[in-house]
């Protein structure tokens, strides 16, 4: 029997401290997530210094719980994987410092993982990723299309020019009086309403794969402010539905074009906003109409948000490709995949 590959993975890029144990890159033995939402709710958004302080309170407890729950001894481990970017620098540093120290004290190799690769590999818990593949990554900080010609190669072919989709949700949430985090409540509200406002669909006909949501956000805010001035009450469910439909239409349209232009075998939907029901449903429906042969994999709802399990899965692949870091590994808050704007031309 061959020895199991057991990775202890760390994630601390934003407001969750997470440590997981992953077997052979595909099986979650444990995935401890300490979420700070209750803390940041006080401020209406994530406060970086507060986030960093919570991470340090939680980090060794999470390591211990992850090992215990997985029934794994430190001596059974094969490697340590850690998110080193992108994210909040102070938050990242806690995970990076802990992962490096743990690896050093236990003579384990250290695998640096790009947080966005982690999000993509959350889909690995549904089925293997087949190449060439395309990932639609939608989260609080990112909206991007990532082309993966082969394993462990990630190329951005399109991304948001301004706000990420998740940011737009939080901003219009404020206008609707929905407290942070606004994504889920708006998604639910949208399901009770109809697209009656017909907000703009930015860049939908442009000859590229980039997104823009600031125009939509402004149109939304102007509509609400105008109604306030004339003492008119707008239907909140319809507002939410109209906003969401515009976001979803733009993302789905661009994604379908990208999938057509690249001869890919699979589309992966991942990232925090990938939990959005409107997006999941519309994308599934359009794909089955227009590209029925394309394999569509959605990251499981449970692993759409930030977690270390996905970092372990991506770390396993990076390790196979001999991606290792030494004790000088630093946090890289603006880490990005290679940007390949002309990939298709």
């Amino acid at each position: 029997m061959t020895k199991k590959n057991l990775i202890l993975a760390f994630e601390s890029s934003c407001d969750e401290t997470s440590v997981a144990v992953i077997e052979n890159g595909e099986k979650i033995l444990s995935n401890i997530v300490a979420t700070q939402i209750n803390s940041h709710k006080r401020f209406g958004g994530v406060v970086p210094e507060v986030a960093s302080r919570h991470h340090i309170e939680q980090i060794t407890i999470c390591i211990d719980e992850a090992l215990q729950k997985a029934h794994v001894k430190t001596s059974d481990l094969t490697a340590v994987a850690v998110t080193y970017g992108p994210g909040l620098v102070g938050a990242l540093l806690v995970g990076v410092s802990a992962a490096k120290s743990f690896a050093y004290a236990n003579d384990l190799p250290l695998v640096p993982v790009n947080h966005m690769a982690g999000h993509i590999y959350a889909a690995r818990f549904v089925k293997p990723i087949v190449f060439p593949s395309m990932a639609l990554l939608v989260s609080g900080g990112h909206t991007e299309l990532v082309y993966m010609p082969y394993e462990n190669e990630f190329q951005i072919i399109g991304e948001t020019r301004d706000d990420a989709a998740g940011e737009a949700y939080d901003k219009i949430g404020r206008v609707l009086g929905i407290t942070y985090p606004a994504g889920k409540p708006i998604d639910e509200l949208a399901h009770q309403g109809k697209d009656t406002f017909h907000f703009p669909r930015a860049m939908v006909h442009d000859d590229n794969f980039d997104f823009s949501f600031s125009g939509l956000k402004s149109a939304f805010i102007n509509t609400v402010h105008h109604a306030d001035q004339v003492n008119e009450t707008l239907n909140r469910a319809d507002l939410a539905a109209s906003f969401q439909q515009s976001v979803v239409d733009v993302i789905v349209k661009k994604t379908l074009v990208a999938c057509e232009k690249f001869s890919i075998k699979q589309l992966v939907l991942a990232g925090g906003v990938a939990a959005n029901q409107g997006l999941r449903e519309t994308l599934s429906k359009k794909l089955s109409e227009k590209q029925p042969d394309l394999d569509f994999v959605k990251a499981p709802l449970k692993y759409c948000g930030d977690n270390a399990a996905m970092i372990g899965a991506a770390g396993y692949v990076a390790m196979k490709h001999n991606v290792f870091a030494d004790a000088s590994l630093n946090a890289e808050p603006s880490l990005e995949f290679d940007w390949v704007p002309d990939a298709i031309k």
Partner: protein
Amino acid sequence: MKLLALDTSNRPLSVAVLDDGQLLAMTTTNIRKNHSIQLLPIIEALVKQAGITVQDLDRIVVADGPGSYTGLRIATTTAKTLAYTLNIDLVAISSLRALAANVIDENRLIVPLFDARRENVFAGIYERTSDGLVSVMDDQHLSIKELAAQLLGMQKPVWFVGQDVATYAAFVQDQLGSNFHQVSDALNLPNAFALGNLGLHAEPVAHPFNFVPRYLRLTEAEVEWKKRHPQEDTKPYVERN
């Protein structure tokens, strides 16, 4: 007892490996280079130079603040993770006390100080007696004016320690006159050998799990929030599942 001592509270970094009270190896840097890049490679090199392995360590001593929040987090996260996974004692020593330990003379007040910007400092007042380094005023975040006023009332010679003393030297000298003294440059830097000796017999923290830096200050966001919401709270702030 094999001991690792580390301090990255501010721009200087100091790391040492000790065997009981004896120094085996030490590195101190004072450069603008990220502590996160420097710290662990230096620990690795020192442990090797000391002729031991990391698994031979019996105790970690860390300067846990006050200081730069980022610097503190790098040292304390490293220290608590090492102590946890090696299952050894973790000792926390105030970064100000560690700096005060550079002064070995008795019969004088010792004031280690870090700049906290906008005429505020992190400072403590210490005195060396036959019982060792005794705290006369707790480490705290206060204005340089308040600190000077306190010291003026004590009417004793004061020796200021730390690289940031230069920023306020003119003002404090003006207040304290001939009671104001500065130490030589070499003593303005943290010294992990001295830190290690302070931690040699000190009581370890109860468990690395709950160990956090000594920030000595709430975040601005929390201060504002508490002002506006004296009654409410959303505790527990962190939920683990």
